[in-house]
């Protein structure tokens, strides 16, 4: 299935991309699985998305938990803890 992935702030800079559309292999059905899939690219991806890093996630513009399901056409965003206000 195809999903849209977005990155913001420090994460966007570390990965060198604001986002992309990607085709996911079967079995990648949660936010955590997608994060792990992206980590598998190695290099900056492995470092920036490491389990030890505080990364917040959103699915279709709502804050999401790691176990939340994702489906074709979803917009999934990864970003650092927010610092507005």
């Amino acid at each position: 299935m195809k999903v849209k992935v977005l990155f913001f702030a420090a994460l966007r800079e570390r990965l060198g991309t604001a986002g992309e559309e990607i085709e996911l292999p079967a079995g990648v059905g949660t936010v955590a699985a997608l994060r792990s899939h992206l980590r598998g690219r190695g290099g900056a991806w492995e470092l920036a998305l490491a389990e030890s890093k505080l990364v917040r996630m959103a699915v279709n513009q709502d804050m999401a938990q790691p176990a939340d399901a994702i489906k074709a056409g979803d917009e999934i965003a990864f970003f650092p803890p927010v610092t507005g206000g």
Partner: protein
Amino acid sequence: MKVSVQREDFDAGAEIRALSRDPKVGAVASFVGVVREVGMTLEHYPGMTEKALEKIIAEAGTRWKVLDCTVIHRHGTLRPTDQIVLVVVASAHRGDAFAACEFIMDYLKTQAPFWKKEAAGWVEARAADDQAAARWK
């Protein structure tokens, strides 16, 4: 209810007056966040930002009697003393207006997708902000 994420500055007085016109309103509480000491650039997640702010306001409305509310948050480049954020809450009585205004700011700090970048780098999230939001649970 009004939510705006914008580059331009805002007129807090005009926004407060706009929420004071309903004769049911007896209290208008407001908060203005200002850039302190060093300039910054604010990045946000267009679309989600507005949605997150609307959800926070809706949540405040389930906890207190809120007649109307305005949230304006700026993005882009900001200098020391620039206004960053405005929250205005109109209620019949001050207790609801004060509490809802503080709640909205505390939740905005931890839930609305904004990120500050200073010359020294990206600003780290503060545990104190998580604690401030957690006390409303």
